[in-house]
């Protein structure tokens, strides 16, 4: 019973690790450890990517990420990085409106 469960989890592994239990069990244990770790890492990686995407989008409009986020926070616009990167990709006109707002607030010496 247990062997079958392990070999089921080992589908797609390289070489004997997908067929032979004694090799598969090691790789499956490692895989499960990686899955545990990476469920937490996935959240970090996602945020990292959002920040890179927002940075690229704001730089296209002439402002950099750090200034953009700081001014948004000061202006009490609570859009999170997930939404902001989503806007930057799928709704560029909306994103430009945000950038214009930020430039306006910075022009008036918000901080």
């Amino acid at each position: 019973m247990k062997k079958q469960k392990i070999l089921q989890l080992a589908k797609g592994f390289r070489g004997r690790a997908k067929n032979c239990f004694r090799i598969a069990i090691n790789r499956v244990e490692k895989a499960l450890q990686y899955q545990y770790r990476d469920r937490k890492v996935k959240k970090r990686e996602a945020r990292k990517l959002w920040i890179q995407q927002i940075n690229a989008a704001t730089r296209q409009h002439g402002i950099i990420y750090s200034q953009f986020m700081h001014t948004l926070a000061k202006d009490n616009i609570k859009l999170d990085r997930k939404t902001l990167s989503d806007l930057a990709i799928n709704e560029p006109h909306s994103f430009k409106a945000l950038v214009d707002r930020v430039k306006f607030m910075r022009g008036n010496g918000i901080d």
Partner: protein
Amino acid sequence: MAMAHRVVARSKASTHRHAAVAKSCVVRPKGTGVTTRPARGLDFACRATVAGGEVKWVGNRRKLDLNRKYYPKKEDVDTQKKVWYIVDAEGKTLGRLATMVSMYLRGKHLPTFSPSMDTGGYVVVINADKVAVSGKKETDKMYYYHRVHRPGTMKTETLSELRQRVPERIVERAVKGMLPKGRLGNTLFTHLKVYAGPEHPHEAQKPVDITSLIDKKPKEADLAAVRAAVGLE
């Protein structure tokens, strides 16, 4: 000051969408043009200002799914649709040039950037033999290589010697060091075209000139040409 497009978002929960932003578009490389499609944002019901000025509920009363992260589509990585850029290296500092080139090769100038996909463009570098370095690097910067991978057979040459021998390699080496290492990095490197003189065979691709953007802060950079090329209006 009246804001033409006003996205008011005072809390995470509410998003008031102006009708003018209802026609959403996605950033796309030149050639495909800007793709207009029904606003994904109107897949959910929201109060919006429609033409005529009145504020009413529009859209389907369906659950808003913001949890779908964007992953590059086929159009984003399509080689036929990639944007071509050109840089004139004459007199430019080597490292500062290479930084910008690698950014455009990788696609980090686009909001659709993804580290696992090739969303970048092609970059043509001309006058690579006239690229400049500061300090004493012209005579002191060493390039090491092996023809035979045995101890004691490493060859060295200075930057000026390499400039005599294979001038394109200076820029190529610099950019390659700034690209990710691996299969994707190797593919990105093939999108870099370096030429020693002012001539290049890529006129048909109508490359966008980004020479003026080297070392420029985004505030001072004139990005209109790049924005037009990638489809950001």
